[in-house]
């Protein structure tokens, strides 16, 4: 992945860059907000890691101008303040994820991979995680190269989950996406489909987590 890191603290920036390079990404570093903004208008990146406090132009302003210019590269916002205002501001401005400093670098790596998968998947029509592959064109899923023989609803469910990797979907959200207006959405049916899909994914790193009372979250287990 080609990643742009916009961070004015030299020490932290270098650490992030080194870490991400170690994980096999191509990383560019920019320390000034204004230049980062210009750069984003001309060069192509797969992911931007954006600090909020920047000289000349704040991270939120860069984010807004990106989204206004129809640039929909995933953005991970770094902030030193843990307050909700920052979170709301960031998500409203179009951030895909945010992390509060100081953060765990392994966590940063994981989040970067999640965001990378989200964007890369749509581009290359194929989602790969370890021994699991999903072919978006053929609408087929493979474990260790073997077709999983997913049923129609399970395929739909899989596509919904893969496009919302790492975020919580309530049962109602899933039902809305799974059923058309003509079909009567049933929460019990959703549960059954999820249970069945989870069972079929048992040997893959793909995990469907249930938070009772809240909904589902699908993530890739990396260990």
């Amino acid at each position, binding site marked *: 992945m080609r990643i742009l890191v916009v961070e004015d603290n030299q020490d932290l920036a270098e650490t992030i860059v080194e870490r991400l390079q170690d994980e096999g990404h191509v990383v560019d570093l920019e320390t000034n907000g204004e230049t980062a903004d210009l750069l984003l208008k001309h060069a192509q990146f797969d992911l931007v890691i954006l600090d909020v406090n920047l000289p000349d132009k704040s991270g939120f302003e860069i984010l807004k101008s990106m989204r206004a210019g129809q640039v929909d590269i995933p953005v991970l916002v770094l902030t030193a303040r*843990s307050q909700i205002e920052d979170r709301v501001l960031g998500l409203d401005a179009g951030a895909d994820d945010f992390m509060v400093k100081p953060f765990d670098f392994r966590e940063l790596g994981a989040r970067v991979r999640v965001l990378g998968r989200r964007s890369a998947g749509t581009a290359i029509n194929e989602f790969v995680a370890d021994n699991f592959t999903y072919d978006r064109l053929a609408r087929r899923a493979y474990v260790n190269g073997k077709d999983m023989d997913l049923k129609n609803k399970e395929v739909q469910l899989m596509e919904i989950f893969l496009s919302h990797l790492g975020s919580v979907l309530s049962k109602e959200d899933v039902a809305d996406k799974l059923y058309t207006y003509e079909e009567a959405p049933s929460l019990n049916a959703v549960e059954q489909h999820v249970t069945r899909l989870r069972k079929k994914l048992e040997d893959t790193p793909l995990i469907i987590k249930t938070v009772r*009372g809240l909904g589902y979250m699908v993530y890739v287990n990396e260990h």
Partner: protein
Amino acid sequence: MSIRAGAHYSLRRRLMTAMGVGFALLLVIISIFLIGFTRNAANKSYDLLLAGAALSILEKVSYADEEIAIDLPHSALDILSLAPQDRVFYSLTTEDGTLLTGNPKLAEIAENEKNAAPAFSDQEFLDTRVRVVQQSRSIITPNARKWVTITIAQTTIARDNHAFSLFLAGLTGVAMISLIGLAFVWFAIRKALQPLAKIEQNLSKREPTDLTELSLQPPREVVGLINAINGFMARLEQARQQSEAFMADVAHQTRTSLSALQGHLSLAADAKDQTQMRRRLKRAEDQAARATRLTNQLLSHAMVIHRAENQAMSEFDLKKLVRDLITDMLRDTSLREVNLTLDDASVDNDEAMIYGDQISINEALKNLIENAIRHGPEKNEITLRLTPQGEDHIAIEVEDEGPGIPIHQRETVLQRFKSLDINAKGSGLGLAIVKEVVDAHSGELQLRESPNGGLLARMIFQAQRLAAILLLAIVGLGSFAQLQPARADATVLEIWGATDKSAFQPVVDAFMAANRGVSVKYTEILTADLYRRILNNDPDTPDIVMSSAMDLQIDLVNKGFAQAIPAQALPNLKSWASWRSELFGYTFEPAAVIYHKPTFEGQSLPETHAEMANFIRDNEDLLRAQIGYYDIRKSGAGYLLATQEARLSQQFFRIAESLGRAGVRVFCCTGSMIEATARGELKMSLNVIGSYALNALEDNPDLGVHFFDDFNPVMSRTVFVAKAADNREWARNFVQFLLSDAGQSVISERSGLLPISEKYLSINQANRDNLLSIDSGRFVPIRLSIGLLTYLDQMKREKFLESWQQAVQNID
């Protein structure tokens, strides 16, 4: 923390108010007693006047010529006129109820009891409150013993005033005492509050760090306050020590943490091989994580305290906050191993609104969840539950499967840096933060054992109740009717007067010239007719009644036919020429002697009344049938002058006798006497009205005017505004005009009357020889008072006229 300025109240003012109310209450009670007491006292004094009058009248009752007669003593009504504003009525009746003399209406209400001692009572008479005295006396007649009863009624103005002034004096005294009492109270309070000032002084002089006890010797009442202050300072000192300990703890914790990190790192740098270095670096990384967490928690703690002090409160949805927090936390990969359950179904969406600081509560909840994760087993089951608590509270519970907290340690864990398990990577601040947040929201933090053996932490907050306040403001639009004075286009002011119309018209004209929009209708009526028509409530009542018969006017006013005018509006008013602010004299009319000048050429006329009696007797033949006098049986003015002269001088009946012997001729009016004297038909006329005489001098060179040196009675024409006046305002204006400088000047210059104002009298044309010098004491004004009623008494009048007629003998 600051105390709102509006919330201050003054202890001193409260005490003073309480004492003030007490004193006021006392004043009211004393006033009630005082009213009764002063009324009694006033009654006692003024009853003596009534009793005196009654007694002096009864003394004059006699039996003569086969009938009971009364010679009403002048002193009786004079005694009563010591109450100058009061009206007086009297009646004398026999035991069978026959009215001998006086007011027949009063005789009707009089009870016929044979009471030799005066009996007093309060009654209503002619719509006025009166004090009545009744006293009886037995008269011996040839046939039997007969009882006569005198009833005198007097209005109560003077005694009311007296009672009021006594009351006022008494009240003033009591009020003064109250004020002095309040002053003492003020001083006492001041004195009593001094210890507080001392505390204030002591406290304000202190250094901020000085939290030692106040060492004062306070009075017993302030001991509690001093103890409270000392207790507070002790707690403050303790808090300061805690805060210092906290600082020390923070320093200790962070430095230790960083030292450990540094130590691990330097060990790693000195490692002999890769495996050793990797192990040491791993430990350094763990240590860094702990240091990070400690820093985060310290910042979080500082933040919630700061926010609690700044009251960053708003209304928000607790349910949404919980869901958002869990979603956020789930982004963190470390949380994915935990089984999380959210149970918020028992709270409706609109019930989860609370008023508070969203960020602090978020922080608290995050700490509870992190605690649950940290202290729980590998496969942890955490439940978040929102439940309504009673009517208006809501609880957030966090339940885990960890070891829980033993009951005896649940208090301890809420303190800072009191982590129970050193191995659990706890900072010792998590629950302290939660406690701070809950306290800042006046909520409650409960630590319980969960059903599956772990810890159940419960935060309870007050739910926001949406109260709709409906304000109904009723705006009343009061439209006030404008009362326009109902005044016709041309007001006609009706005046009935006894003065010649021709003489008075210039005064009327001057008034109309000065007051546009009013026309005056002046009707000339003889004094006796005027009196009778008013007394009989003539339907064509005038607005103003004017007459030279002072006694008749007094009687009308006494019977309530007049209304009052504010006396201060009348600049030229004389005290002798006004009664009750209702009746006013506006002219100066001395009695005079006129004579035919040629007859007495070279002769000087007598200077005193006594000499006049002798002079007439000595010149009987010269004057026979050529001396004029009023027919006092017919002329009101003549009767008034005669009776007043009789009062003033013993010589009256001697003169009358002389006049009789000289064949006096009697006339109806001053005018005819002047004419006759001017023609020489009469050599001399006595007791004529001086103003007419003086004004006649210019046209009649043979006429002379003479005033006595000892005394000359002075009448005044009087005016009152009728009670039934239609044009009260204009009527008042007219009376004010008569007594104003403008009015007096017109009277003086154009009416042929003499003004009452000395200023205009002294420059009057007719007074060019300065005959009328008032200072000399020769002119004795007839005072307007109820004393004038004496000679109006039927019996008294009959008796007086009888005596006069006997004296002058041969008149028809």
